[in-house]
C-alpha cells in the first residue's frame, strides 16, 4: 500500500509549505484562486445559459490561436499570444453560431465540429512549424502552475506586485467581477428570458458576444497555468457546486468564489502529498467539494432527501387555508 500512495505526513503536507516555502506557495495559491474565481464567475453564466460546452470549445481553440499569432508576429510576448487566443475564442463562438443557425445541425454537434477542427488545425500548425513555433504543447494542454512563482515579478508605481502571470490573472479576475457587477441585470435578464431582454432594448446578441469575449479572455489568461483541458473544470465546477447550495444568483456567485479559494488551497496540499500535478490536484479537490455539496446540501442534497424520505412524518405547520386562486 505504501508503495502506491505516498505516506500522509501532516507536517510535511500542511505545515512545511507555509513554514519553508511561503514565498512560493502564496503565489501558487493566489493564482489558483484567481483562475478559479474568474472561471467560476463566467462559468455560472455558461451553466445558466446551458452553454457549458462552449467553454470547452473555446479552451481548445486557444491552441491554434496562439500558434497562428506566434507565426504571424514571430514573437512569444504575452500581448501577442493574448490577442491570438482572444481572436480564436471569438471566432469559435461565431463559427458555432453560424453552423447552428444556418444548418440543421444542433448546437452541441456544432460545438463538437468547431472546436475539434480548430484544435486539429492547431496540432498540425505546431507540428508543421515545430522548429519555428517554440510552443510546448504539453504545457498548453496541462499548464504548469507550479512554475508561476518563478516568472519575473512586476512592479507598479514602484511597488512590487508579484509574478507577472499572477498579477495578470488577478487583474482579469477583478475585471470579470467588475463587469458582472456593472451589467448584472442585463446579464440576468438576457440569460433568463432573451425575449423580454430584447423587448427591453437589451441586445441579446451583444450580450452573447460580450460574454464570449470575457470567457475567451479568462480562458486565455488561465490556460498557461492550468492548461486548456483543466480550465473547463474550473469553468463548471464552482458554479455547479454553488448551484447545489443556493438558489439565489448573488449567493451562487459568491459561493463559487469560495469554492475556487478552497479548491486552490486544498489542491496545493493534495499535490504536495501525492507529488502530482498541482492543477490536476486543484481540479480533483474542486470535484471533491462538488460531491460534498451534492451529498450534504441542506436543501437538495442526497442526505437531506434520504433523511426526509425515511423519517417519520414531521409535525406540520397549522392546517392550510384553502387556496382559492391564491
Amino acid at each position, binding site marked *: 500500500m505504501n508503495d502506491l500512495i505516498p505516506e500522509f505526513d501532516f507536517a510535511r503536507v500542511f505545515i512545511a509549505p507555509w513554514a519553508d516555502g511561503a514565498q512560493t506557495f502564496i503565489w501558487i495559491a493566489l493564482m489558483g484562486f484567481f483562475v478559479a474565481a474568474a472561471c467560476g464567475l463566467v462559468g455560472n453564466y455558461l451553466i*445558466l445559459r*446551458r452553454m457549458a460546452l462552449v467553454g470547452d470549445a473555446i479552451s481548445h481553440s486557444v491552441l491554434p490561436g496562439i500558434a497562428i499569432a506566434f507565426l504571424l508576429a514571430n514573437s512569444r510576448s504575452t500581448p501577442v499570444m493574448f490577442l491570438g487566443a482572444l481572436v480564436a475564442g471569438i471566432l469559435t463562438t461565431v463559427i458555432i453560431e453560424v453552423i447552428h443557425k444556418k444548418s440543421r445541425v444542433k448546437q452541441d454537434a456544432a460545438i463538437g465540429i468547431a472546436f475539434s477542427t480548430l484544435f486539429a488545425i492547431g496540432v498540425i500548425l505546431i507540428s508543421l512549424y515545430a522548429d519555428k513555433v517554440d510552443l510546448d504543447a504539453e504545457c498548453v494542454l496541462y499548464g504548469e502552475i507550479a512554475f508561476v512563482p518563478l516568472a519575473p515579478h512586476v512592479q507598479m508605481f514602484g511597488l512590487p506586485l508579484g509574478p507577472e502571470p499572477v498579477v495578470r490573472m488577478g487583474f482579469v479576475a477583478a475585471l470579470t467581477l467588475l463587469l458582472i457587477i*456593472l*451589467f448584472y*441585470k*442585463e446579464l*440576468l*435578464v438576457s*440569460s*433568463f*428570458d*432573451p*425575449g*423580454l431582454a*430584447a*423587448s*427591453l*432594448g*437589451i441586445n441579446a446578441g451583444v450580450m452573447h458576444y460580450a460574454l464570449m469575449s470575457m470567457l475567451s479572455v479568462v480562458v486565455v489568461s488561465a490556460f498557461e497555468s492550468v492548461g486548456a483541458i483543466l480550465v473547463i473544470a474550473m469553468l463548471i465546477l464552482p458554479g455547479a457546486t454553488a*448551484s447545489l447550495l*443556493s*438558489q*439565489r*444568483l448573488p449567493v*451562487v456567485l459568491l459561493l463559487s468564489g469560495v469554492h475556487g479559494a478552497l479548491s486552490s488551497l486544498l489542491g496545493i496540499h493534495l499535490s504536495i502529498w501525492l507529488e502530482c500535478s498541482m492543477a490536476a490536484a486543484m481540479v480533483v479537490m474542486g470535484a471533491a467539494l462538488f460531491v460534498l455539496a451534492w451529498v450534504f446540501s441542506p436543501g437538495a442534497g442526497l442526505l437531506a432527501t434520504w433523511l426526509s424520505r425515511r423519517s417519520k412524518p414531521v409535525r406540520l405547520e397549522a392546517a392550510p387555508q384553502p387556496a*382559492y*386562486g*391564491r
Partner: protein
Amino acid sequence: MHDTAPALELHDLTVAYHKKPVLWGIDLEVPQGKLIGIVGPNGAGKSTLIKAVMGLLPISSGWVKVFGQPLKKSLQRIGYVPQRESVDWDFPVSVMDVVLMGRYGRLGLIKRPTKEDREVARACLEKVHMLPYANRQISNLSGGQQQRVFLARALAQESDLYFMDEPFSGVDAATESAIITLLHELRERGKTMLVVHHDLPTAREYFDMLILLNMRLVAFGPTSEVFTNELLQTTYGGRLTILSDVAEAVKEQRILR
C-alpha cells in the same frame, strides 16, 4: 402627438423560418384601448406574430409601427408576457427578481432597481395576489402561479401596449376570471392588449375584437362580427369535430342568456 395613432399597425408582414414562410402578408391596424384576442390553431403563427412584431424575429418583408412610430422608438411602451414554457423555471431567482425585470427597461444601463421600483413590483404582485410569494424561488411555484408572476412582471413594465402569449394556459377558472378583471381594468386605463387564447367559447366573451390567424390573416374585427361559423371554419381548416363542439357551446350560451 400620436395619441390617435393605431396602437399597432402592420403592413404586408411576412415572417419565415429558414426560408419557409409561416406568416404571409399580414395587414392589420389595431386601435388603442381594446382587449384583443389572437385565435388560431396550433402552429398558426400566433407566437411568431408576437415575436416578429416585438423585433425578436427577423421579418422577411413589410413593416411594423407601434403608436405610429417605428418599433425601436416605442419599445418602452410595449409589455410582454411570453409563453410560460419559454423560460427555465429552475433559474436561481426569486419571484421579486423576476417582477423587477419588468422595470429594467426604465432603468437604463448599469443602474440598480430603486426602492420605488420595488414598491411598484410589490404593488403589481399584490394585484395578482402573489405578494406572499415574493421571496420564493421560482421553481417552487405552481404553473398558474408562474403565469401570474409573468403577468405581474408585465404590469411592472407599465406599458401602453401588451402582448400576452397564452396567459390563461394552466390557470384555474377563478384565476382566469381574476386575470380578466385585471385586463379590463387596464383597458379602462386606455391600455391595448393582444392576447393569444385557445378556448373559443371564452374568447367570444372576453375580447372586444378578434384576430383570426392561420398563416394569413383570416379576419380582424369586433368579436360580434368575426366570430362566425364560416370564418372559424376557414381559420381551423374545417376540423369539424372541434368546430361542432364550439357551435354546441355557442348555442348553449345563447340558450343560457
